[in-house]
């Protein structure tokens, strides 16, 4: 493998963003509330709803407290980075476009083995699901490709394609390194130099020091605030200025607190279903209100 020519991490990110920018995507910066996946961001979850076309791409640091390994495991990270691309509606040549993005970061697909293997995606706490594939490159899963069907339990008007690249894996593949910590982020700087401390400290917090009663209290505060706001929406005089985005932030907070509590071993399997149901309830309510708000705005404009 021509490792000397392999692009550095940030170069790969630049190239992918440029590639999708050239195909009509709005390039955004990461969402500033902690999420487990780029899908949860309002730029995907809420914008997938409703009749308006939408194309965007953004890098999203994604926190999975249970996947933390104190920086010891070469392939698992508490916080990894996804490049999230949403194409709504899906263009007919979406897979060709996706393959083009791999070539844009230096993968000669004629020399590699690319397979699309069935993998349907579901996020029960957001009432969202879709069908699609995991994209395997020489046996490595590099992308999750999903045609969304429902968000917040609502059938989507236009079907978006969601393309989620695992950036660390993809880069490790291109650079031919066995550990994500050995990825060259930018010349002379390794992934370890930038992120090792995060991995160590958050693992210690999530597995050892996070205070369970406090996390539950925070969970209830955020859930309460989301519910309070949702209760106000139906009677709001000017629906279009109602802060549903702010309401949704509280749902995201709940989701991340749930993941942290789970990593801490504080949620039994029985409770699990119940807590997921609580998050789902507010997420679905925000989605429904959002669709209603979009409709109101359209009416207003018409």
């Amino acid at each position: 493998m021509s490792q000397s020519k392999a692009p550095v991490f940030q170069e790969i990110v630049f190239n992918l963003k440029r590639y999708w920018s050239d195909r009509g995507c709005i390039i955004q910066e990461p969402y500033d509330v902690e999420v487990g996946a780029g899908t949860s961001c309002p730029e995907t979850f809420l914008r997938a709803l409703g009749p308006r076309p939408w194309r965007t791409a953004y890098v999203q640091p994604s926190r999975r407290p249970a996947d933390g390994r104190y920086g010891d495991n070469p392939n698992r990270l508490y916080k990894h980075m996804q490049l999230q691309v949403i194409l709504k509606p899906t263009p007919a040549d979406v897979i060709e476009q996706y393959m083009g993005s791999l070539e844009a970061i230096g993968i000669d697909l004629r020399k590699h083995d690319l397979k699309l293997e069935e993998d349907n995606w579901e996020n029960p706490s957001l009432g969202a699901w879709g069908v699609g594939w995991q994209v395997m490159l020489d046996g490595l899963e590099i992308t999750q490709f999903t045609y969304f069907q429902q968000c917040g339990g609502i059938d989507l008007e236009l079907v978006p394609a969601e393309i989620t690249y695992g950036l660390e894996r993809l880069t490790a593949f291109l650079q031919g390194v066995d550990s994500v910590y050995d990825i060259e982020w930018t010349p002379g700087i390794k992934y370890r130099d930038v992120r090792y401390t995060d991995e160590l400290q958050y693992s210690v917090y999530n597995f050892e020091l996070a205070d369970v009663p406090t996390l539950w209290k925070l969970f209830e505060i955020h859930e309460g605030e989301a519910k309070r706001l949702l209760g106000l929406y139906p009677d709001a005089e000017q629906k279009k200025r109602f802060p549903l985005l702010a309401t949704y932030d509280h749902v995201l907070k709940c989701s991340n607190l749930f993941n942290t509590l789970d990593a801490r071993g504080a949620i039994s399997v029985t409770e699990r279903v119940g807590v997921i149901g609580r998050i789902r309830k507010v997420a679905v309510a925000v989605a429904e209100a959002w669709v209603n708000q979009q409709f109101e705005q359209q009416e207003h404009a018409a």
Partner: protein
Amino acid sequence: MNLLLEIGAEEIPDWMLAGALDYLGSAIAALLKEHHLGDARVRTDATPRRLTVRAEGIIAQQPDAEERVWGPAKSAPATAVAGFAKKQGLEPGQLEILSDGKAEKYSFMRKIAGRPANAILAEALPQLVLKTPFPKSMYWTGKGGVRFIRPIRWIVALLDDQVIPFEIAGVPSGNRSSGHRKLGAARFAVTYENYEAKLRENFVILSADERRTRIRAVPTKYKCDNDLLNTLVNLTEWPTPITGSFDPEFLDLPKEVLMMVMRHHQKYFAVETPDGKLAPRFVAVTNTDGDPEGLIRHGNERVLRARFNDARFFWDADQKRLLSHRVQDLANVTFQAKLGNYFEKTERTSALVRFLSNDPHAERAALLAKADLTTELVKEFTELQGIIGGLYARAQGEPEAVAVAIYDQYKPAGMEDSIPRTEAGRILSIADRLDTLRGCFRVGLIPSGSKDPFALRRAAQGIVKILVEGKLRLPVRTLCEGNPQLEDFLAERVRHYFRELRGFQYDEVNAVLASGWDNLPDVEERLEAVRAVRPTEDFELLAASFKRIRNILKQAQFEGSGAALSERLLENGPETELYETFAAVRAACAILTDYHSRLERIASLRPKVDLFFDKILVNAPDPAVRRNRLTLLHTMLAEFSTIADFSEIVTNSPLTKGSE
């Protein structure tokens, strides 16, 4: 004429191709037949990106047909007749008066011109294609749009050299196909004749058999796994196998874990050494035409190394806490919301194991059986639960019998799978499943119809299989805690097992189960005996006689008088002969130990029974004689029904029709 239909789609899940082809092939054959377009020869093929149907021998034009149209009755007013004629585009004079079998009516013979096959197909194919059944479908053109397994991206529809014009989801049919995503052309024209050759030029092998052969043609001798082979055949358009290797030091990890990673996670074939050990190599199947620079091999090797490293990481981490210490952690793992946690299940299963046997190894295994649910390796490879527990038990110095019982606890995984190797393993497996069944039935989680979320049928089937094949004479009905629903459920599984898996006739199974099924190995022996004597001449006739006896007793509402048989009241001749032969057979059966010989003896009663019914009137005028005769019949029936209730045997004998 020849039909070529190719539905080009984005990658269809490999396991759904066969079902889709079955449907498309038969639906198109049926369509051609329905429209009188000939008895065409239909063949189907698929790759991940296309479903293809070809049919030869289609008639270009439907034959003309006639259809009689009925109008108003002969007595109808002239205006009504004129109206009918006008509607049909005729003059009233062109109508005939005929009887439709009930009344005289105006009518005429309408000529129906045959339509061209092309037009019929153009009309029917879109709906036919969209009706393809898929386990999970999607929409992609927008809410309310058509559904298919994945988006349809091109359609080839040709009848000879003519395009059959239609559209599905905005995609118009045409004559252009598409090649391998990277090696072939994106669009190229095809004809019926050159279709397969054109695909090949564009790196698509249409024939699944040929793809299978290509996958098998690798110098490395690997362990062929047919399920995996089929998956790979249906996951590739131009398969090329490559051989890779891994560091032999990973062979320290259990073979089961290595195989699971290779087979399930990476879809590689594992390679074995001549003496059956795992070799540090693997065969991967690529969807390319080769790997001259070794890039693909290198990539796959790296992925496998990372996976194996993960497994090693988990294995080492798990050893820090013994299974025996993990048992208490099971209190935090829910078994089922209404049935508590796995610690409680462990206690119940252990109690059952103590009840079923006094094997200390089985009991120890029951205590540790579920502890592996708390390990990292099982969280990663859930399919290996039980197996991991067994391996850890061995690594942690538990007795081998305990390790093997834990390892085998989920066997048989299906009806094809073997039962646990040891008696301790069998007892554990039964106790575990029985506890699940009892618990679920107690709280009302009872399977209905196709709904069986807790796989209780499989659990019950496993118990039956282990009891029979493990020759365990445990009182299966007693184990149902007197719950009639659970008893029925289990009885149904016993029937299913003997009928579907062992091929016994349903009436044989009914007959034998009617005589009790608390001891399943005994049920098996009785069934085999019945099956063995069934073809003999006497047996079915005797069964018919038993049915007759049963009917007589039923009609007489006789359930045994309590009085013993009185030999004095027996009439000389056929009645005494029957009684004496019966007494002799009974005495012989008491000594004989195998059911087969006993059944042969019983069947030998047949001529005497026939003679009895021929010559003797059971309903004798003297009530004492009558009661005595009924007692004779009742005693015989009771005596011989311990093997099987012969009246359940379905016979063709005319005797069954007669009744007293």
